[in-house]
């Protein structure tokens, strides 16, 4: 027990270290973009018609602390970042945490739901596909799965919107109905949210499921052919006991391992889907921040939070793996 706690602490420390490293890279990238926050804001002001001098820019730099050395600024940024404090947005001059707060959790919720949905479907389907000898079933599963892989999410989103607009007269966009958008959370608002959220979750899960089915099927096919399965059959183990206790049980480890990777993929697809479904509450902020307004502070904060989610999930899967696989467990406990 003590050793397991030690393992968890070490893994947690490693996760934090990863985050610190990532934050350094993110911060450096923010720094590499030509110009800084002061110039950007001043340029924005100038475009609004104000007359700005070079002295104003310098004053703004001092105000934002941009005249301090690079490493020191990174240090301050990272310490704040771990407390969920990312300073003000370059352009909007509003506190980023307040701007992002709820939106981030909604995005994470959408991505995690899509991940969950993908695996709830993929694990049984993948196992059946790997073990069934029914050629028709296998081929149709393969076809659906290739469709899922080949059909881009945004196209699927557009098709569903088009269909829904024509048939129901509702384009199914957004995450909240008008009346709830600025309302405080309530059961009615939650119901309204769930009524909207299923579509982005479905679209995000679409390709994730196809991908996960391929993963599960490949891993299962691998395990099914192994000698220990034949040996178990030779001992009289049969039917479901043979399937679940042997190959399925042993394919689980790599499947758990692939979760972090899949969350990453889903996050990557979220902004595009969010853009099309006009989910202002979700990932489209990132595109907004990066591409349109060049808002470094904002982009940095978003990337940091995304990375933190993925590192966090990987930490959880590491722990689950250690709990389920004796080989991993023994290698930790020594």
């Amino acid at each position: 027990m003590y050793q397991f706690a030690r393992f968890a602490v070490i893994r947690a420390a490693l996760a934090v270290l990863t985050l610190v490293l990532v934050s350094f890279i993110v911060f450096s990238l923010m720094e590499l973009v030509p110009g800084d926050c002061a110039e950007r804001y001043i340029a924005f002001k100038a475009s609004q018609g104000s007359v700005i001098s070079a002295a104003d820019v310098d004053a703004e730099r001092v105000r934002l602390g941009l005249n301090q050395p690079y490493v020191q600024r990174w240090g301050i940024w990272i310490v704040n970042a771990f407390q969920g404090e990312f300073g003000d947005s370059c352009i909007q001059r509003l506190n980023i945490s307040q701007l992002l707060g709820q939106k981030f959790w909604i995005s994470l919720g959408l991505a995690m739901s899509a991940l969950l949905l993908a695996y709830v479907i993929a694990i049984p389907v993948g196992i059946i596909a790997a073990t069934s000898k029914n050629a028709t079933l296998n081929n149709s599963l393969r076809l659906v799965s290739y469709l899922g892989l080949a059909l881009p999410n945004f196209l699927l989103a557009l098709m569903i919107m088009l269909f829904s607009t024509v048939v129901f007269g509702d384009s199914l966009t957004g995450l909240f109905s008008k009346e709830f958008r600025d309302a405080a959370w309530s059961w009615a608002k939650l119901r309204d949210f769930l009524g909207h959220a299923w579509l982005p979750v479905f679209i995000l899960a679409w390709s994730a499921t196809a991908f996960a089915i391929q993963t599960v099927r490949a891993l299962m096919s691998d395990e099914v052919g192994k000698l220990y399965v034949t040996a178990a059959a030779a001992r009289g183990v049969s039917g479901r006991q043979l399937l679940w206790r042997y190959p399925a049980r042993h394919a689980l480890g790599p499947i758990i391992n692939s979760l972090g990777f899949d969350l990453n993929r889903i996050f990557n697809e979220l902004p595009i889907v969010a853009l099309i479904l006009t989910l202002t509450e979700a990932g489209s902020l990132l595109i907004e921040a990066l591409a349109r307004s060049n808002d470094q502070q904002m982009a940095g904060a978003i990337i940091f939070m995304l990375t933190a989610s993925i590192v966090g999930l990987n930490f959880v899967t590491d722990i689950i793996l250690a709990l389920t696989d004796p080989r991993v467990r023994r290698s930790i406990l020594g």
Partner: protein
Amino acid sequence: MTRLLDVENLTLQFDTDEGRITAVDNVSFSLEAGEVMGLVGESGSGKSVTAKSLMKLNASNAHYSDDTKITLHLEDGPIDIMSLKNSKEMQVVRGGAISMIFQEPMASFAPAISIGDQMVEQLLIHTDMNSKKAKEVSIEMLDRVGISDASTRFKQFAFELSGGMRQRAMIAMALSTKPKLLIADEPTTALDVTIQAQVIDLMKDLVTEFGMGIIFITHDLGVIAQTADSVAVMYLGRVIEQGPVREVIRTPAHPYTQGLLAALPDLDNLDTPLKPIPGDIPSPLERPPGCVFNTRCPKVVGDVCSTVVPDFANMTEHHKAACHLYTQPQNGGSAK
């Protein structure tokens, strides 16, 4: 002695993308209780497939011929193995009356399930023990095969044991249900020579103690000479020679068996060059017509070898070989 197993006309084909290939061709043999039979041949000769047929353990693309008949004689009466339909019916021969141990002890234990759990599982399937009793019996068996500190080993996983220890555990598991027939598929090939000897001794002791039959599959004639009472030599899915082990090894009749024995290194005279059998075993997709060995045989007697499948000819009462050397009177009849 009492008859334990009869295999008659075992013919087995696999459907593959390249077509239907014949893995085992008209193989017949029988085994007495308490007898150790060696099944010898190169890789690809069909010896493992033959062994797996006894438990109907071959892949689902396997087709047995209609005249294939495998009968296991138990105290409660004979079991016609080919007629067993589903996996529930087959439990009698899978881990019950027949147990099998494999070449790779590491790979034949499930890596994430403890050795004890796998042993208990088998006992729960085949006996009416409760899990407490099954655990006791398992630990007893581990102890019996010479594993020290058996109750600790019981909780461990295959990767935590040494190679020899794993194979002992495998033997303990295979014997825990007191099978009548043990199939050992190259059980010592993956082990060091010293460990090999220990494992073979252990198996010989256990045969005597449990009074069961063993089919010992190997490509190593040395191991067979030490272990087996009788031997069947297989080549490309056919038994080409069989008989009591001493007779077959001292006076091999089939040119293939002669070649196998000549290919063994001579430890008394290390300067003698090795004499491998020339050529490779042909692909099962291109089985030679006539005698399957005719493409590599140094003693071909004529066209008959590549056109007619040789029948068995008796060398002595129990020693027989399928070779035209002994079926063609014009070539001198019995070559011995």
